[in-house]
């Protein structure tokens, strides 16, 4: 399906509307689509809209492709309809769209073609071997050889292209990579077989060349699929990051547009509970803003006309309008992500295990092959014999353990992680996670759930709780929400009342027949107290009740910390919060090594210092953690994290349990063990077979069979990971 027409112009202009019925196709990323039921409701929701012709959801990619008539409905209608059905959706950014899926499919085609050819050539070869000692005459044998050539030549020419291209590019840059000996082995074996065929020799090796190609392509395809999936997840997150914005036009009308399409100078309305879509200055309205995304501090800040708001912060209490000063790529958010991508470039220097092995392996293979050829010539052998043995050596040493087994292990590990709700975002992150030996946590939102719990629920009278809750219903302040929740769980329901007014930075008030009742900061209720972690309720009679809050640890936090300690992973807590808050949370989680308050720059400095001795896994969620996540060796963030932080993280885990951290570490280290085992198998096989091949005891066909056996063995070993249960790791 074409998505080229997707939405670089997500804003549907009047010019578009005037155009007669036209069809447009578009991909939407859907955040929370998990099962068959979700597929169905997503498709039904979209098809129920006027102007939508076609909707097809893709569960693996978590996207839905839609064909619609832009003159009847626009992108915003689609997204709104989905959000009413409970799905968070966002149009895929056309600029980020690439043809990765096609690369995937291209590899699979080549796998299929080479598989077909390998099977059929093998069929002919087996007849030749079994017939050679019996009743097969020379004419039939030569006919079979020619038939094999007929199948093999186009197959090699088509299916071998990825290897030939990569080898050619490497040679042109005066380097050696693993594709050079692979290409050499395939081309030499094919050319040699053609020569043998025309001289009517008994041995041809088309089967060897094609089987080799098949197994290598299988590995490449698995590897590519993992990358495609990881990149697809990363792009979904990128698209979901920017939502919709309400623009107020000069004639006072309101219009929903994609946040990408905002321009400086425009006036934007942000309702209570919405995220600010761009950087700007407040024109009207007073409200509280949760800047947690920027500062990591969960306590909201009061703002009024003339103040500056930043993209990604959350408007809590009242509607505000602001004038956009910077949008899209120019926002503070975008600047921070720019900083992060710079930090990530340092990490890109990480070389994958397979690449490191290939660097040693490739020259060794060439030297062995050349030595075999030269050796046999030196001992007076015919050049044909010498070349045959050299080809056998090249085929035997073909790096199937590297090319097939490592990707197979990684794919198995990634799908195991997906099943546990852990999304892998960078293809090489598994290896980096397996290297990690120290864990650094952020506090708010990572070690804790990022939402407050009411400490003194039992000490509050039912009357006051009910009264406070009916005021609190009107607000989306996190403390107010907690009060409502506490009232619901204790009293069953919370009554709605009229006339509640929210005063930004202070609290809520309502005029009653007996006087004013208030819920808000201690000062606002006339109490002298400095604690910011409390709300006060003042009844019309003047009675006052305190609501005290604290953060709640994630489930399994203590167990996870214990396990990490047991494994020697630290852990350390770095937080931007007040010293007392950090200390109390560290005590609860059982972490002795804690530091706070630290600002983002200090976090990075701390990580840099530690990374001299340790490879660090950073787990964080706030925007202030994002640069630290990019700095660390490997990083993880919860799915509740700021979108930009999820972009920086290598892994994103869903659900509340912190146990995902140890689970991911367990799977990664198991994957590494399996990869190393596979190297071991490959090494053993090479130590036995290479001397035999050099001594001339192995024909290219036997070499191909031996190589296939070792490939199947290492793949089978890799698949063991799918049944792996975490928790048994000591």
């Amino acid at each position: 399906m074409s998505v080229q027409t997707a939405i670089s112009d997500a804003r549907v202009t009047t010019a578009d509307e005037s155009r007669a019925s036209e069809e447009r196709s578009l991909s939407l990323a859907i955040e929370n689509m998990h099962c068959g039921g979700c597929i169905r409701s997503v498709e039904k929701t979209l098809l129920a809209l006027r102007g939508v012709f076609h909707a097809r959801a893709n569960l693996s990619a978590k996207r839905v492709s839609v064909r619609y008539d832009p003159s009847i409905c626009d992108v915003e209608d689609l997204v709104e309809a989905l959000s009413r059905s409970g799905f968070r959706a966002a149009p895929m950014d056309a600029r980020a769209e690439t043809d990765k899926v096609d690369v995937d499919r291209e590899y699979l085609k080549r796998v299929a073609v080479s598989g077909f050819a390998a099977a059929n050539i093998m069929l002919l070869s087996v007849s030749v071997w079994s017939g050679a000692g019996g009743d097969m005459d020379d004419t039939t044998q030569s006919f079979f050889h020619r038939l094999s050539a007929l199948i093999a030549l186009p197959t090699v020419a088509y299916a071998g292209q990825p290897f030939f291209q990569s080898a050619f590019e490497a040679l042109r840059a005066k380097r050696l990579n693993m594709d050079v000996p692979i290409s050499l082995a395939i081309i030499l074996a094919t050319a040699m077989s053609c020569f043998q065929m025309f001289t009517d020799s008994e041995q041809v090796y088309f089967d060897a060349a094609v089987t080799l190609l098949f197994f290598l392509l299988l590995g490449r395809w698995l590897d590519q699929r993992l990358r495609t999936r990881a990149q697809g997840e990363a792009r979904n997150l990128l698209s979901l990051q920017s939502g919709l914005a309400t623009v107020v036009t000069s004639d006072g009308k309101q219009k929903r547009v994609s946040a990408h399409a905002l321009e400086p100078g425009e006036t934007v309305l942000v309702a209570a509970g919405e995220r600010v879509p761009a950087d700007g200055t407040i024109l009207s309205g007073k409200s509280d803003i949760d800047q947690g995304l920027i500062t990591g501090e969960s306590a909201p800040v009061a703002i009024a006309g003339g103040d500056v708001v930043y993209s990604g912060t959350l408007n809590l209490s009242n509607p505000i309008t602001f004038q956009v000063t910077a949008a899209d790529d120019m926002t503070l958010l975008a600047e921070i992500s720019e900083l992060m991508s710079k930090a990530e470039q340092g990490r890109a220097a990480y070389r994958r295990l397979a690449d490191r092995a290939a660097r040693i392996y490739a020259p060794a293979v060439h030297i062995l092959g050349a030595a075999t050829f030269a050796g046999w010539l030196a001992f007076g052998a015919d050049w044909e014999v010498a070349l045959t043995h050299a080809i056998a050596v090249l085929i035997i040493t073909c790096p199937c353990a590297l090319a097939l087994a490592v990707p197979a292990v990684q794919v198995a590990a990634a799908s195991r992680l997906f099943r546990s709700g852990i999304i892998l975002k960078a293809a090489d992150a598994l290896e980096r996670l397996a290297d990690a030996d120290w864990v650094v946590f952020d506090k708010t939102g990572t070690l804790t759930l990022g939402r407050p719990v009411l400490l003194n629920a039992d000490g509050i009278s039912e009357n006051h709780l009910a009264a406070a809750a009916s005021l609190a219903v009107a607000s989306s302040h996190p403390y107010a929400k907690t009060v409502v929740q506490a009232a619901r769980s204790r009293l069953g329901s919370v009554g709605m009342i009229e006339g509640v007014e929210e005063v930004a930075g202070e609290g809520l008030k309502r005029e009653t027949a007996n006087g004013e009742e208030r819920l808000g900061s201690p000062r606002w209720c006339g109490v002298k107290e400095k604690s910011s972690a409390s709300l006060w309720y003042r009844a019309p009679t003047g009675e006052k009740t305190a609501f005290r809050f604290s953060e709640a640890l994630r489930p399994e936090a203590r167990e996870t910390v214990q396990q990490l300690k047991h494994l020697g992973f630290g852990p350390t807590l770095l937080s931007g919060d007040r010293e007392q808050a950090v200390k109390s949370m560290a005590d609860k989680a059982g972490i002795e090594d804690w530091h706070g308050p630290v600002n983002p720059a200090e976090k990075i400095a701390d990580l840099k210092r530690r990374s001299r001795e340790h490879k660090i896994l950073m787990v964080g969620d706030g925007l202030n953690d994002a640069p630290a996540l990019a700095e660390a060796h490997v990083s993880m963030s919860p799915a509740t994290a700021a979108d930009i932080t999820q972009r920086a993280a290598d892994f994103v885990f869903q659900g509340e349990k912190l146990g995902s951290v140890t689970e991911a570490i367990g799977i990664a280290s198991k994957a590494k063990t399996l990869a190393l085992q596979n190297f071991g198998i490959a090494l053993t096989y090479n130590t036995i077979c290479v001397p035999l091949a050099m001594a001339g005891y192995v024909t290219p066909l036997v070499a191909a069979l031996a190589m296939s056996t070792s490939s199947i063995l290492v793949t089978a070993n890799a698949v063991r990971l799918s049944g792996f249960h975490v928790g048994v790791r000591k």
Partner: protein
Amino acid sequence: MTALAWLIPVALFLGLLGLAAFLWSLRSGQFDDLEGAAWRALEDEDEPD
């Protein structure tokens, strides 16, 4: 041996048929969403839309 004259073309033809069927299914997107396909099989499509 004369059996070979038609057995081999038949074998190759059947093989090519399989390959063609696979390439066709690949092109028509049947491998794009394996997880979704597993779920869709369980859905009843008989209600009138």
